[in-house]
């Protein structure tokens, strides 16, 4: 288990504060950050991955700065910038940059199979769809056997079945002791998280177990869309209703 701490973290680009006064302390499980576009989710993940440094405050992984913990961390961005000429296997090999042995190879094969991408081995990325590229990068990231997995929009571009598969993998990794930190938009999927963080306009507005935090009133305020709760076969389901803005848009 890896402990991730945000201590009074703020991050500024020029004059604009992207995130402000963030305090988060997670040490295990599946932790999901949700919030509207531009709320600062990606910024939080990039801070943990050590890609950017906080303007104020500090981010710690097991008590040390992120640059000290890289070997046990895997990061998958929301926006991929892979070389289209590279093959799926090149991606995995590049991801194993700091590995000491070749054990990632077997692990990568296994993850490709689990994600239904076994057929893609050896193929160039430009021959894959956006969703398939994401699954390939996910397999490569997982083949690092990370103790801290940072994933931005792990379900983006995926069909329903692949969304379920990825969510189950994240759930299982968390149960096995990997600390998972994810940002996502799929409010329905968030029920499977251990802890949810709601970010709005750069500030943390709520955190806790899904049952505590996923409240129709709060989500309605945060997203500006009315949520309504329905009774599903295994509990309450929150579904958004169409917005007034959309209605006026079609007039």
């Amino acid at each position, binding site marked *: 288990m890896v402990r991730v701490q945000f201590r009074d973290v703020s991050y500024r680009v020029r004059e604009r504060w992207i995130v402000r006064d963030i305090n988060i302390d997670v040490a295990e499980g599946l932790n999901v950050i949700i919030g509207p576009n531009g709320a600062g989710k990606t910024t939080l993940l*990039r801070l943990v*991955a*050590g*890609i950017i440094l906080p303007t104020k405050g500090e981010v710690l992984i097991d008590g040390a700065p992120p*640059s000290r913990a*890289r070997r046990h*961390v895997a*990061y*998958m*961005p929301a926006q*991929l*910038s*892979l*070389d*289209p*000429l*590279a*093959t799926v*296997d*090149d*991606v995995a*090999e*590049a*991801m194993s*940059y*700091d590995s000491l042995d070749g054990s990632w190879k077997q692990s990568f094969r296994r993850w490709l199979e689990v994600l239904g991408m076994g057929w893609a081995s*050896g193929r*160039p990325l*430009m021959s894959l769809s956006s969703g398939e590229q994401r699954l390939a*990068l996910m397999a490569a990231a997982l083949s690092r056997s990370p103790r801290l997995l*940072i994933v931005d929009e792990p379900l983006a571009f995926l069909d329903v079945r692949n969304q379920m598969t990825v969510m189950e993998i994240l759930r299982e990794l968390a149960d096995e002791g990997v600390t998972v930190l994810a940002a996502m938009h799929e409010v329905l999927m968030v029920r499977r998280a251990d802890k949810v963080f709601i970010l709005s306009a750069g500030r943390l507005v709520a955190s806790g177990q899904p049952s505590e935090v996923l409240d129709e009133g709060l989500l309605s305020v945060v997203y500006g869309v009315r949520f309504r709760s329905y009774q599903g076969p295994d509990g309450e389901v929150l579904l958004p209703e169409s917005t007034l803005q959309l209605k006026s848009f079609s007039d």
Partner: protein
Amino acid sequence: MRARLWAPLLTVAFFASYLLSLSVGAAPGVGPLEALEFMFGLSSGISRDLEVYRLSRAVASTVLGSGLAASGMGLQYVLRNPLADPYLAGIASGALLGVTLELLRGPHGFLALYLAALGGGLLTLLAVISISSFAGFSSLSLLVAGITISYVLSGATMIVMIELGPKIPGALYWLFGSVAFVTWPIVLRSGVAVAASVIGLVLLARRIDTLLLGDEVATSLGVRVPLVRALTFVLASAATAAVVAMAGPVGFIGLVSPWAARRLTGSSFRKALPIAIVLGSELAIVSDVIARIIIAPSEAPLTAVTSIFGAPVLALILVRSRAETSW
């Protein structure tokens, strides 16, 4: 896997190209038999002298091909552009102008020419990348910026060459690129300089490979991306500078060999680099043989040969890259 398949084939081809280079030339009566005698240390007299000369050309071509291939490899990977090469990125033109300006100041040793070429090449690359960034960094903008700057520098080089022509015999060959006038000491020095660049690139190889993941992911792995990029630019420029200081700029080898190596081995920089170097050497050796015989007893410039054979390959890459990825 595929690299393992191609490596022995390319090694055989490498030795075959040396045998070819030692067997073919304008002088009559010195052919394959004499070349074999020379290889086993059995030749003597004029035949031996001729073979020593041909060997110097073959070794110079090896240095030239390796340097340009390694330079092109580095540029293509860090710029993530299959069209990047020492020529299109402007390094070769900048290096050539550096060398001619240095020659204009008087006779110089190899080191001074190498440093002048490196300075010219690096400055040009910087200018090309800056202009290209202003235009929204892409394959196309890089290409246009490179060609634009190269035209300006070629113009300047021509003017300097007119001044230089009467002073230094063979200066024109610098402009066109040729290994006909190289001497052993220069080949050796250029070889050491190219080797230094190649070793640098090999040391960086694993880091260069992480760039295919995108800058963000590479950074998350602990790779200092801007530093890796800057070092690769310096090493690529240094390799090209060493070649230009020895034999002038030669086109297409730095473009075609990395591209072909990538086709053969997949795309890992680490695996493709040695293949590109061997391919580049073979291309240079064979091109030099053609340059010797195509208008014998006169010498054709090396660039003339590589251009005639290389241009169709550039067209092929353009067509393929358009079909495969959108600009």
